């Protein structure tokens, strides 16, 4: 796997040219919004700026922005640009959804190893607390 670093303004993208670029734009931007790297209501690059910075096809960026808009994570204001949503609730719900997805993936993998969700609960209770870990 070969990752290329491309900076757009203060934003750093890592592009893997052997994977669909559309998905990487959606994941990296939604990840930054979910983590809070991008503030509520922050302005994000225009389609042109992002396409130039990533050296990506403008169509690909347009489609990625449409997907993020469908999720409610960004909004385009006519003549002003594209912004992160101002709704903390939307981001909260998106974080919850992401957490659920990751949890499902984790549980599926554990199940393949023969651990039931109850086993996992038990393992988690036994898991050292943050302060106890070395």
């Amino acid at each position, binding site marked *: 796997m070969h990752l290329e670093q491309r900076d757009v303004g203060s934003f750093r993208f890592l592009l893997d040219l052997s*994977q669909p670029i559309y998905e990487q734009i959606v994941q990296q931007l939604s990840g930054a919004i979910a983590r809070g790297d991008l503030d509520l209501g922050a302005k994000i690059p225009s389609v042109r700026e992002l396409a130039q910075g990533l050296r990506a096809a403008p169509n690909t960026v347009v489609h990625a922005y449409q997907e993020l808009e469908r999720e409610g994570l960004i909004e385009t204001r006519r003549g002003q640009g594209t912004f992160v949503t101002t709704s903390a609730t939307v981001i909260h719900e998106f974080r919850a959804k992401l957490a659920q997805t990751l949890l499902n993936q984790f549980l599926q993998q554990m199940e393949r190893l023969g651990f039931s969700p109850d086993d996992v609960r038990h393992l988690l209770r036994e898991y050292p607390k943050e302060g106890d870990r070395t």
Partner: protein
Amino acid sequence: MTNMAVTCTDVSKRYGNRMALNGLTLEIPSGGIVGILGPNGSGKSTLFRTLMGITRPDSGNISVLGSVPGWETNAKIAYLPDRARWYADHTVRKALDWGSSLLPNFDRSRALALAHEMNLDLGQSVNGMSRGTEARLMLILCLARQVPLMILDEPFFGIDLISREKIIDALVASATEQETTVLLSTHEISDTESLFDYAVFLRAGRVERQGNADSLRSQYGSMRDIMRNLFQEEVTSQ
């Protein structure tokens, strides 16, 4: 049915005993940046010349923007050929004036803005231009036109990194602003492969593989990986 910018059905063209195009069948949807990729001699330039009606195929059917190639379709195509000729007494400014008087749908103020963005000296003579300067001028003559189709044959050939970045920036800006299909052939695949939303791989005058670039990426890997896998012998022997 999706709108097709280009359709070729079983197109062949022979030069002496060499088949430049050999039963080439191709469908390119409208909109977006399309990479036309393949080793030397795979038929990229011949394909472009047949789309412009400069070269007539021996057999097969070609449709460009819904019509047979000819002067009517050419008015709607900005073509950057693999080699250029200039009037010896022209400066960059005169070459742009020539473009605005002769090329259909040429936006002179956009050409001047592009020349400024790409650091072209308008007073410079076209004689003795560096390759990088010439490539930028050729590209401006294409990007300054409001047309539904652009055909760029090796726009980065022999060009330094800085000029290449300027050209890519201008190309992306232009693709953002207008609904254009851009066909682009290049050897500089590592700089440009992320640009493509559709890709066509040619070999020996035929289409070896084509499709939406993101679908190809998830199925086969990067454009460079695909080149390597399809054309290993040709690429290593060059």
